[in-house]
């Protein structure tokens, strides 16, 4: 019912400026962005911020609770684990793994996904059919299970976990890229441009790219949060990062046996995962609303 009407003479802000204005209105998204920047700081400057080496064992300080509790000491802000390692330092270094690994995962998935999606979108018949069927099947296998199978074949460990999670995330990218390309190629102005003899590169930068970017950005944020959770889950199952690596999921699987003796070694790493994923999802929601004003009316 409502129609936005803009006077011709009022300056219309640029595409990105508009985007930022809409994004800023989202309180949750701004909060998420702030948290994410802090976590990013932790990841980038771990050696500066962490008071101890993440694997150093202080054998006279086993299972010290966090500093704010009665028995805690300031030396170990978030307490120590059953081997006397400083939990704060482990979490700080863990952020490096969490963000770094998932960035690698998303990069691989996006690269292959866009490539396959473009092939599927620009081709017809058997190639497109084969690609899309394979993607459907990958989607049909629960993501963690598929990662587990891949790890079963190529063996546990960090690099393999990255490949596994990346493969699981590829189909979403393929679908988005293919759908957008198909949709754009059928639009009148693209057909007109083609008839005018516009070449592939020009078509790509002028009509495909601007339309594909928004959903792609949203998908990247979704993939990012999935990657973090899945890498942590694999670590937790003992199939990803191996101890004494301070990967958050791995820390959780290590402290599982001490859940009653040292509950903070369970609550704190999990909280770190939750906050990170939550921040990314908040940013993702904000991006989606800001990129697609039609959707943000809800």
């Amino acid at each position, binding site marked *: 019912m409502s129609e936005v009407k803009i006077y011709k003479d009022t300056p219309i802000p640029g595409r990105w400026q508009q985007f930022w204005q809409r994004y800023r209105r989202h309180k949750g998204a701004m909060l998420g962005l702030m948290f994410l920047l802090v976590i990013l700081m932790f990841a980038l400057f771990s050696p500066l911020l962490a008071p101890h080496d993440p694997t150093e064992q202080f054998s006279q300080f086993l299972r010290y609770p966090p500093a704010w509790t009665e028995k805690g000491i300031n030396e170990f802000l978030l307490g120590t684990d059953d081997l006397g390692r400083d939990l704060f330092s482990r979490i700080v270094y863990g952020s490096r793994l969490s963000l770094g690994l998932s960035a690698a995962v998303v990069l691989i998935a996006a690269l292959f996904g866009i490539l396959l999606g473009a092939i599927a979108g620009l081709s017809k018949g058997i190639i497109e059919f084969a690609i899309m069927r394979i993607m459907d099947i990958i989607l*049909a*296998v629960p993501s963690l299970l598929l990662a587990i199978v891949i790890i079963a074949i190529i063996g546990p460990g960090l690099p393999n976990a990255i490949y596994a999670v990346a493969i699981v995330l590829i189909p979403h990218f393929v679908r988005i890229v293919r759908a957008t390309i198909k949709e754009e190629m059928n639009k009148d102005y693209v057909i007109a441009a083609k008839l005018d003899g516009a070449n592939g590169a020009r078509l790509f930068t002028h009509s495909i790219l601007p339309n594909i970017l928004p959903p792609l950005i949203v998908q990247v944020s979704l993939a990012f949060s999935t990657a973090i959770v899945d890498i942590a889950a694999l670590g937790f199952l003992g199939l990803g990062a191996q101890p004494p690596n301070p990967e958050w999921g791995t820390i959780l699987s290590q402290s599982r046996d001490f859940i009653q003796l040292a509950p903070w070694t369970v609550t704190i790493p999990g909280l770190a995962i939750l906050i990170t994923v939550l921040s990314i999802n908040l940013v993702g929601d904000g991006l989606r609303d800001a990129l697609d004003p039609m959707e943000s009316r809800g």
Partner: protein
Amino acid sequence: MIRIIFRQLTTLALSFLGITLIFFALTQLIPGDPVIINYGNLTPGSEEYLAAVHAMGLDQSLFQQYLIYVDNILHGDLGRSNITNKPVLSEFFTFFPATFELSLIATLIALIFGVLAGVLAAVKKNTWVDNLVISSSLVGYSMPVFWWGMLLILLFSLNLGLTPVAGRISYVFDIEPVTGLMLVDSLLAYSKYEFAAFFDALRHLILPSLVLATVPLAAIARMTRSSMIEVLNADYILTAQSKGVSRWKIIWVHGLRNAMIPLVTVIGLQSSVLLTGAILTETIFAWPGVGKWMVEAIFRRDFPSIQGGVLLIAFFVIFINASVDLLYAVINPRMRRPK
């Protein structure tokens, strides 16, 4: 209708073909001697070994091998676990009911509370109720399941002592597996334990199913909310209001009936999410289901079980998705042919 069913069946058959092809290709990638992987430690060159080579068609072309592979699957022969030496199919069906029961209850919880919360938020848009639903569903959606399970165990089982830590039922009860669903089987044992076994099974089920339901519940609540907000803005809602239809009926009949249409697809997608969650939930709660079985199979390098198990799970998900597509066609009148 028949047309749609037929199309779904074709899709199912195609997916079957695709899955077996991919899995067959994957088996080629498994490192090591395929005979030893599938039949255990046979001495190469021995009679049994050669028999196995022949049975798997390893002495024939790759295409022949694939045909044998598909043929075996169609006969329900997924090989034998190289740890327990039992047929994989029967192993699967001893673990599957536990997963099915857990997932079913979790789905019900997610569906009922997710839809309720979503509708409530849409109706009370921009109020504190809406904000509460939005923020808690965002947290739920971001929840690492394995940690959430441990937290709840810490709180309800260890600190408060309200629920058991692990398993499906206490050892004091000796329940005969009839359906494999503990809630049903414990009721069937009514003559022995009256309701005691049932309530015990329920107490075991509550935490795992809550943990498993969390992410899908949040996803369903978010989707229901946005779908419902869109529907409530439609002209036909104004028509219904102008006719004097009660508010209750407008929301739950005119509104939800339409909002459910896009929701069904999302709920279908959640089946895959749910099974991923089941793997973690079962591991944490020592729930003897397919997920835990799979994880253990990996640590034991029990390849026949992994292959067979994942294949069956994939079939299950594809079957659920096909059913959901069918349901979509049933509840969406626009899918019917115009006359």
